């Protein structure tokens, strides 16, 4: 196993710990927006999708990339918008 890969595993493990610390502080009242919002964040796969779809040759890779861009964008745009729609309603009266 080479050094870069080990580094990636480091990042993964540490990020899991950060995730646990952050999420346990989210109150139950916000759990639905948390899910939809974190969902939008997991749409970060869009980075990979863009790289796949932007290759010059039109191969099976670019076509898969195109579908991936569509899927990831639905996830990103839909996720952030619907989360905002919900959070807008959480008001104190």
């Amino acid at each position: 196993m080479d050094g870069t890969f080990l580094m990636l595993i480091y990042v993964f493990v540490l990020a899991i710990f950060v995730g646990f610390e952050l999420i346990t502080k989210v109150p139950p009242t916000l759990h639905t927006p948390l899910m939809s919002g974190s969902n939008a964040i997991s749409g970060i796969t869009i980075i990979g999708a863009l790289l796949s779809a932007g290759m010059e040759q039109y191969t099976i890779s670019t076509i898969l990339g195109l579908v991936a861009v569509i899927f990831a964008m639905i996830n990103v745009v839909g996720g952030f918008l619907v989360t905002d729609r919900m959070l807008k309603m959480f008001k104190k009266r």
Partner: protein
Amino acid sequence: MRIIIEISYLISSIFFILGIKKLSSPKTARQGNLYAAVGMAIAIIVTLLDQHILTYEWIIIGVIIGSAAGTILALRVPMTGMPQMVGMLNGFGGGASTLVALSEFYKITPNIPVNTGIAIILSLLIGGITFTGSMIAFGKLQGLVTGKVVKYPLQHPLNALLLLFVLGSGAYVAANPESVELTLLITFAALILGILLVLPIGGADMPVAISLLNSYSGLAGSTTGFVLQNNELIIAGALVGASGIILTNIMCKAMNRSLMNVLLGGWASAGSLPEGGVVHPMGDVKAVDSEELAMLFDVSSSVIIVPGYGMAVAQAQHAVRDLTNILEKKGVNVRFAIHPVAGRMPGHMNVLLAEANVSYEKLYALEDINDDFNNTDIAFVVGANDVVNPAARHDKSSPIYGMPILNVDYAKIVVVNKRSLNPGYAGIENELFFKPNTLMYFGDSKEAISKLVNEIKNI
């Protein structure tokens, strides 16, 4: 250029972390979501500057279609449909991970290092399960697929076999990365596995399934990060993965079930209700009419409302809000007790009440309000059933024994609004209805509560 891109990814990751941090309070949550969106925008823009991207036509087409579809979905979904929406979004995330991993495989085969090969296989497996599993979950919640526990022959051996096939042939592909057909077969197996794994899960357990699939969609993103050797994908995926696991755990605890038990589709078999008929062996219930009830509310000084999903089904949120307002005008202390599984996903009930303009400060979680029922005049149960069944505390033979419940029966008077005496999701009788301090207020929640509000007004 490379270094600028890498640093931008780091900044984008920081925005994600700050965004989630701001979700720790309803006051800053909206801003937090905006932070996360900014982080995403940075990541997308910077990626477009990457020198590996040579043509933009596919990208533009994809971005336009995806954004338009996402916008339409987000603006049109009703708040009651939020579990389906999140289920579907999970699926698209998992699908995107699968496609990216497959695309990367085609691009670099047969020169794939073993590390990357393993990451590709895991991406295909987790992403594939997330994609089809989420679509089945969506179908169940939307009523397109049966919400019942589906049993099929050889359920467990079949799933185990499929998983073993994916792992075994995955190891082979990692060592022999020229096997295109086998890789496609692995993808196919993962997609089938997603369907088979979610199909047996009953409708009542969907909050767990959705949370777990949420976690998978994050992990799928992380594995794709390993494929592309991209730290930001790994970080963002890990955050979401952790979030999903925590929520899954909370949901399991709230239903007193082990994750294994949910995944194997256990609960429905425990319900021992005779087919077609409902028996009431527990004695008589006391019914109350709106006039009498209005009088009781009028002389009360503290009320806790316990909403269940039945309230949302009857679209009674606004009537409940009107009741809250009129009682508060009379100086009554009104609070809401929200059980973790009151809705169809974590926090769902809170969103439904927020939509009806109920202040989030009046909403209390189970552990924060359960001790207060003792000194409450009226506990008003609207459309909730199993989560207020005292049998969970003492009846060892009950399928819900041990499940944390709201102790509504400790209040001076319990008022239960329900259409009829039919049992709840778990299919069991509720002894609360037969307690001496319980009054049944029968009727459709929306109509019945509006009527009650009018009666209180007339006093």
